[in-house]
């Protein structure tokens, strides 16, 4: 489960309070589904490894197919931006070893972190031990990190996904996963029948649940849904691929501790910057690089000389904000500085025209429109006047500011993912 309600959360459709509440409902639903499908019983998970009962694998693959088909179809229909999806970075060898260790834990305990919570909720004592093991294991890993760190951080592949790694269109990969899952469903059914047949005629009762009587209607529905998913993925996935390049799939770009992928954003005009400041809608830092006069500076500026700037960016000494707005006297020098901030993984832009433009557009009163003006011009004048008043302490009527522009920065890095 990821930490946030994507993509509704990032689009700002709800407040934090409502999002927390919805997360709770989703969590309860998830736990209930886990419990009902038998994931809370360690016997069910372990019986995969004896070939008796593959229900956990079926549910897991169904969940993967459903989520994948949903993502492909929604982004194909243009309802979702895959670029915003957060994927954990891939460290090939470390994750292979980690996966095996985790898998060994699955076999021994019969739980994964998520199902152990479901197991504990349904009153299983062994699940409580698994829950206690999670912080214990994390602690041991943290203690050993000085030894393991080099290995854990080696062989980084960035945020890799199958489509970007194979260079294949999304729909091709999705169809491949569908076919693989379909094949696996058929294969495990055979294995189950084969294992159980070995008990026929012996005195030992057959392990696993009694053979399920197949309801023809249900079975037909399942096949139909599978086919519908397959067709949907091909059609909408192809539509998606036609619009984008494979590498865009799930490619998360943003400030990161390991990889620095910053960006130079388009410059801001004085009015645009003023709107952002008035609305307080985004976390920005305004960095004034002038060394002499600090005249007509933008309120809230911090003063860092051009020479110190990259050094302080490299040392992570700048305030942690979404984007940095560079300001100079005329807006020329900062144009060249912005890329160097971006090189340190930051989102950088600059005030077009510098403090000279700020002084002209914001700090001096706007000219009153005269004779034969349109409604738009009046509205523009009113906005200018209120911005002017806001930044110069002049008395004024309530602020009339148009919506502030949105600096397109990547969402903050969140933890999460995996089977937990």
């Amino acid at each position, binding site marked *: 489960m990821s930490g946030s309600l994507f993509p509704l959360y990032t689009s700002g459709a709800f407040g*934090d*309070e409502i999002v*927390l*509440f919805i997360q*709770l*409902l989703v969590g309860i639903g998830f736990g209930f589904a886990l419990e*009902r499908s038998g994931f809370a019983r360690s016997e069910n998970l372990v019986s995969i490894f004896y070939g008796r009962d593959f229900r956990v694998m079926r549910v897991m693959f169904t969940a993967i197919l459903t989520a994948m088909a949903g993502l492909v179809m929604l982004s194909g229909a243009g309802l979702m931006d895959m670029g915003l999806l957060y994927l954990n970075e891939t460290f090939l060898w470390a994750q292979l070893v980690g996966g095996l260790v985790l898998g060994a834990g699955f076999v021994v305990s019969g739980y994964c972190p998520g199902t152990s919570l479901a197991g504990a*909720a349904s*009153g299983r004592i062994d699940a409580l031990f698994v829950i206690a093991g999670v912080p214990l294991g994390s602690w041991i890993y943290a203690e050993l990190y000085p030894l393991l760190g080099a290995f854990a951080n080696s062989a980084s592949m960035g945020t890799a996904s199958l489509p970007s790694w194979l260079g294949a269109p999304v729909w091709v990969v999705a169809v491949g996963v569908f076919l693989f899952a379909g094949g696996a469903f058929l294969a495990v059914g055979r294995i189950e029948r084969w294992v159980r047949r070995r008990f026929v005629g012996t005195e030992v009762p057959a392990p696993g649940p009694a053979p399920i009587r197949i309801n023809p209607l249900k079975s037909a529905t399942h096949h139909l849904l599978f086919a519908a998913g397959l067709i949907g993925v091909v059609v909408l996935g192809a539509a998606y691929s036609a619009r984008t390049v494979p590498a865009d799939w799930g490619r998360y770009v943003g400030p990161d501790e390991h990889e620095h992928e910053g960006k130079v954003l388009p410059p801001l005009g004085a009015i645009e910057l003023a709107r952002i400041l008035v609305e307080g809608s985004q976390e920005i830092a305004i960095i004034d690089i002038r060394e002499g006069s600090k005249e007509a500076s933008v309120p809230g500026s911090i003063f860092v000389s051009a020479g110190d700037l990259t050094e302080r960016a490299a040392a992570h000494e700048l305030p942690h904000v979404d984007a940095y707005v560079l300001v100079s006297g005329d807006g020329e020098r900062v144009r060249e500085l912005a890329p160097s901030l971006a090189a340190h993984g930051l989102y950088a832009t600059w005030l077009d025209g510098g403090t000279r433009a700020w002084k002209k557009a914001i700090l001096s009163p706007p000219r009153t429109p005269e004779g034969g003006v349109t409604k738009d011009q009046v509205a523009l004048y009113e906005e200018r006047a209120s911005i002017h008043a806001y930044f110069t302490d002049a008395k004024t009527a309530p602020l009339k500011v148009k919506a502030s522009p949105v600096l397109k920065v990547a969402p903050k890095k969140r933890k999460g993912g995996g089977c937990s």
Partner: protein
Amino acid sequence: MTETLVLRTNEGIDPQLHIWGWDVAGYLFLGGLVAGLLFFIGLHMRRSGARRALPTSVRWGAVAAPLLLGAGMFLLFLDLDLKLHVWRFYTAFRWTSPMSWGSWILLLVFPLMLVQVLLIAPESIRSLLVRAAPASWAASMAERGWNVVASLSILTGVALGIYTGILLGASVARPLWSSAALGPLFLASGISGAAALLALLERDHAARAWFTRADVWALGAELALIGAFFVGHATSTRCHIEAIQLFLGGAYTAPFWGLVVVVGVAAPLLLEWLELRGRVVVSAAVPVLVLVGGLALRYVIVAAGQAAGVGGDAPLNTFF
């Protein structure tokens, strides 16, 4: 930039609005739980009648009740600023003050609970107490008044449960608390908490199912009373309408709807209902959820009630 500062840093100029903390919430929870226990003990004493056959959990509940109420009153004692003056509560009785009513109710409930311990506690505990002569005499007296003790138990249980809500509701200056629904709401929550606790203690399947069913009714009533609480506020004066916004998008929305309504009432209600219909088997986790929800209800109401004052949820000294 225009910066408006309202300096309210003078000590004693503003009233202190946030004066009740976790200890009061904990007391209200334990008080409500004991009220529910008294209710069920009385009910089962009446049900059993001459057979004297009580579920084991009820017998243990009678032992737990005075201990829980003692713990609750200790929390109340912790909340007192002048701890040595606690005896002054008992030098006066003001019939207009819910505080005064409460301190006397609490004092009078204890003898009743001790009689119940002598009457119905599990044999291992009872035999220890009845050895003492006066206790033995009291037990034999109480044995004759079994039905009176039972009825008294139900009545005091209901009174104590309602009182914990009225204690808050009496303060007109806190719009969130001034609701007639708060008393019955806390009573229903106390009864559901007690049913959950007894279901948790009970080993006998039939008796456990009885408490689960009782819990379903109590939780259902609680849900309805939460609805009444909201309707009451939403149709009342401006300050009530603004106070309830704390739960409708305001600072306490997630704790109230998440912890209290979903975790504490709706989810256990659904699971217990499914269990009674034989659809799922629930574990100890469900009664624990009900108890957590009961504590959360008191905590959220106590905290939010004090936030709903001048300046909404903004801390007074720092708002601009």
